[in-house]
C-alpha cells in the first residue's frame, strides 16, 4: 500500500520535474545558459522539485480556497434577501452535487495514470485505490481550513463547518460507487472529461438551482441543508466499502486511458486538420496565370474563407459602426463637439484597432501550414530569386486584403470628423485617411517580414522560435501602449506615416538581404 503510494508519487513528481525543466529550456535566453545535460543537474532538479511540491500544495489548498471564496461566498454576498449561512449552505450543496460527478478523480484520464497502469503495468486496483484515497484525503484536508474560516464568517455553526469536508468527500465516493456499479451492470465507463448531454443538462439545472432561488430570497432551510449534507457521510462510508471491493479497475482504466491515447494523438493532429479545413474544396476554382502568380492565386482563392471573407466581414462591421456614429450625431447634435475632439486626438488608439483587425498572423500561419511547410522541403522553392519573388507577390496580396477594412475606417473617420463639425485644416482629412492606410500597410509588412526573417515553424508545424514570440509580444505591447496616447491628428499622423515608410523600406532591405538564408524549415 505504502509502496504503491510512494511509487506513484515519485512517478508523478519525476514527470512534473522534467516538464518544468523542459519548459525552462524553451525560454529564449535561458536556453543558451542551460546545459544539454539539464536533466542530470542536481541543483536544477531540486529547484524543480520545490516547484512541484508547491504545485501540489496549490492544488490541495489554493484552488479550493478560491472556489469557496468566489463561487460560494462571493456569489452569496450578492443575495441580500437570504440569511448568509443559509445561502452559503444552499449554494455549496448544489455545487457539491455538480462536483460529485464532474470532478471525480476516479474517472479522470490523466497522464500519470496512463504511465503507471498502462506503460509500467502497475497493479491497477492498488494504484487506483491508493490514489483515490489520496484524492479524498486532499479533498478533506484542502476544504477543512476554508469551510471553517469562511463558514464561520458566514455564520455556519462550527460542528457543521467541521463536517462539511467529509460530506463533500462522501458525495464524491457515493457517486463513484454508483458509477462503478453502472459499469458492472451495463459495461459503461464514465469519462469525466467527456460528459454526455444528460450530464451537462443536469449540471445546468443544478447550477440554476444553486444560484437562482437565492436571488429570489428562497433558500433551503437550515435543517434541510444540514440533513442533505450529513446524509452523504453514512452513504459515503457504505460506498467506500463498495469502491474498495470493486474488482475491475484494470478493465475500467484500460478503456478510459485508451481513449486518452487517441486524444494525445489528436491534439498533435488538430492544428494540422484545422488548417487543412480552411482549404476550400470547390472544384471550380482555377487560375489562368502561371508560375508563382498561379500558386499565389490558387492559394488565395482556396483560402478565401479565412482571408478575404473575414476581411470583408470586418470592413462591413466597421462601416456599420461608422454609419451608427453618423446617425447618433444626427439624432443628438449636442455630442458633436465631444466626438470632434475625440477624432482629432484619438488617432493613436486606432493603432491598436488596426492591430486587432489585421489578418497578418492568420495569413502567415495559413501560408506555412498549407503551403510553405511542404514546399520548403523542395530545393527549387528555396532559390533566392524565387523566395523574393513570392515575397513580393504575397506582400501585395496581404496589403490588398488588409486595405479594405482600413479604407472603410479611414473614410469613415474622415466623414465623422466632417459631420461632427469639421476642422480648420483640411489636411487633417487626408492625414487621417493616409495614416490609417499606412498602419494597415505597416502591419501587413511587419508580419510577413517577421515570418520571412524568423520562419518560426518546424516541418512538424510546431512553433519553435523564442525570438518570434518575443517580437509578437512586443508588437502587442507597443500597440497597447499607443492606445493610451492622445495626440493631434497632424502630429501623430505625420509621425505614423513617416515611421511606416521608413519601416517598410528597412523591412524590404532586410528581407532582400537575409530572407534567402532565413526562410527555411526549422529543425
Amino acid at each position, binding site marked *: 500500500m505504502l509502496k504503491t503510494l510512494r511509487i506513484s508519487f515519485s512517478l508523478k513528481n519525476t514527470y512534473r520535474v522534467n516538464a518544468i525543466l523542459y519548459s525552462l529550456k524553451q525560454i529564449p535566453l535561458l536556453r543558451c545558459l542551460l546545459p*544539454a545535460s539539464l536533466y542530470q543537474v542536481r541543483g536544477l532538479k531540486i529547484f524543480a522539485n520545490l516547484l512541484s511540491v508547491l504545485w501540489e500544495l496549490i492544488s490541495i489548498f489554493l484552488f479550493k480556497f478560491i472556489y469557496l471564496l468566489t463561487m460560494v461566498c462571493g456569489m452569496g454576498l450578492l443575495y441580500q434577501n437570504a440569511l448568509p449561512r443559509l445561502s452559503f449552505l444552499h449554494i455549496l450543496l448544489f455545487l457539491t452535487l455538480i462536483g460529485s460527478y464532474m470532478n471525480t478523480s476516479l474517472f479522470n484520464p490523466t497522464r500519470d495514470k496512463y504511465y503507471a497502469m498502462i506503460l509500467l503495468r502497475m497493479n491497477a486496483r492498488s494504484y487506483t485505490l491508493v490514489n483515490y484515497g489520496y484524492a479524498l484525503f486532499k479533498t478533506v484536508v484542502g476544504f477543512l481550513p476554508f469551510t471553517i474560516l469562511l463558514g464561520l464568517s458566514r455564520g455556519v455553526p462550527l460542528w457543521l463547518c467541521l463536517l462539511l469536508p467529509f460530506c463533500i468527500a462522501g458525495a464524491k465516493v457515493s457517486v463513484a460507487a454508483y458509477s462503478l456499479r453502472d459499469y458492472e451492470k451495463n459495461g459503461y465507463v464514465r469519462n469525466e472529461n467527456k460528459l454526455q448531454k444528460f450530464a451537462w443538462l443536469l449540471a445546468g439545472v443544478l447550477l440554476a438551482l444553486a444560484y437562482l432561488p437565492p436571488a429570489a430570497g428562497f433558500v433551503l432551510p437550515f435543517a434541510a441543508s444540514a440533513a442533505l449534507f450529513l446524509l452523504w457521510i453514512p452513504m459515503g462510508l457504505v460506498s467506500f466499502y463498495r469502491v474498495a471491493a470493486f474488482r475491475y479497475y484494470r478493465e475500467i482504466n484500460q478503456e478510459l486511458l485508451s481513449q486518452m491515447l487517441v486524444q494525445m494523438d489528436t491534439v498533435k493532429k488538430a492544428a494540422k486538420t484545422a488548417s487543412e479545413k480552411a482549404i476550400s474544396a470547390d472544384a471550380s476554382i482555377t487560375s489562368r496565370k*502561371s508560375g508563382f502568380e498561379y500558386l499565389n492565386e490558387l492559394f488565395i482563392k482556396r483560402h478565401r474563407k479565412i482571408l478575404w471573407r473575414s476581411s470583408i466581414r470586418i470592413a462591413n462591421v466597421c462601416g456599420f459602426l461608422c454609419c451608427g456614429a453618423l446617425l447618433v450625431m444626427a439624432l443628438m447634435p449636442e455630442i458633436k463637439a465631444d466626438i470632434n475632439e475625440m477624432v482629432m486626438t484619438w488617432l493613436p488608439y486606432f493603432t491598436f484597432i488596426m492591430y486587432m483587425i489585421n489578418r497578418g498572423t492568420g495569413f502567415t500561419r495559413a501560408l506555412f501550414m498549407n503551403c510553405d511547410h511542404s514546399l520548403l522541403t523542395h530545393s527549387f522553392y528555396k*532559390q533566392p530569386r524565387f523566395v523574393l519573388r513570392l515575397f513580393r507577390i504575397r506582400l501585395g496580396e496581404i496589403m490588398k486584403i488588409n486595405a479594405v477594412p482600413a479604407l472603410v475606417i479611414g473614410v469613415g473617420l474622415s466623414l465623422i470628423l466632417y459631420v461632427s463639425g469639421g476642422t480648420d485644416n483640411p489636411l487633417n482629412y487626408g492625414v487621417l485617411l493616409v495614416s490609417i492606410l499606412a498602419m494597415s500597410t505597416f502591419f501587413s509588412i511587419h508580419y510577413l517580414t517577421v515570418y520571412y526573417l524568423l520562419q518560426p515553424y518546424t516541418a512538424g508545424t510546431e512553433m519553435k522560435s523564442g525570438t518570434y514570440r518575443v517580437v509578437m509580444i512586443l508588437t502587442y505591447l507597443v500597440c497597447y501602449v499607443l492606445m493610451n496616447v492622445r495626440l493631434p491628428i497632424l502630429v501623430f499622423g505625420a509621425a505614423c506615416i513617416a515611421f511606416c515608410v521608413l519601416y517598410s523600406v528597412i523591412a524590404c532591405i532586410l528581407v532582400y538581404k537575409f530572407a534567402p538564408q532565413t526562410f527555411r524549415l526549422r529543425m
Partner: protein
Amino acid sequence: MKFMIEHLSKHFEEKEVLKDITFTFEEGKIYGLLGRNGAGKTTLFNCLNRDIKADSGSVSLEENGTVREVAAEDIGYVLSTPTVPEFLTGREFLKFFLDINAASIHSTKSPDEYFAMMSIAPEDRDKLLKDYSHGMKNKMQMLINIIAQPKILLLDEPLTSLDVVVAEEMKQLLRSLKDGRITIFSTHILDLALDLCDKIVLLSHGELEVVEKSNLDSQEFKEKIIAALKEETYA
C-alpha cells in the same frame, strides 16, 4: 561527375554528430547509407541540402574537370514523410513546378504522361493533395524530384511506409534513373540496401566509410556490415 564532401562537421550542443567528413560520391551509382539509430543520417542529409548550417566544411561538384559549389537546384531531397502543398491538386502542383522550372526542364512529356509514369490514376490527378493517401503523396514528391533531374538525389527512408507494389515500382524507377546522377539512399532495411544499391556506405562515429564487397557472398557481406555497425559504441 563527382560529388565531394570535404571536412564537413556538425555538432549539437556537446554531441558531435558529423566529424570532419571527407568523402567522394561518383556518378551513376546508388549509394546505400546505413547507420544505427541516431547516427546522424538525417543530419547529414539536412546539411547537404542546407536545411541546417554545418559547422564547417564544403560540398562541391566536379564536372568535366571543373569544380564548383553545389547549388540548391543540384539537389533533390525526398523525405520519409512526404510533404506536398495540401491546397493544390496533383495536376496543379505539377503545372506549377513545370512552369517555374521551364528553363531547366528539357523533357517534353505532358503532365498526364508524367502521372502515368508514376502510375497515378486519372481520377486522382485532379484531387486536392490533402486528400491523397500516404503512398500517393510519396509518388508525387518523388515525381517532382525526378522531373527536375537533379544531379544529386537524396532519399531518406523513402520506401519504408509504402505498400509492396508501390515500393517495387519505386525501386524500378530509381534503378532506371541512376545514370547521369548520384543517388544516396538512407535506410534501416539491410536487404533493401543490398538489393538496390551499388555501394554500401556506413555512417558511424560521425564518419562515412565504404564497406567493400570484394569477393564476399551476400551472406558474408551482410555479416560484415552488421559487424561494422555493431562497433558503434555510445560514449
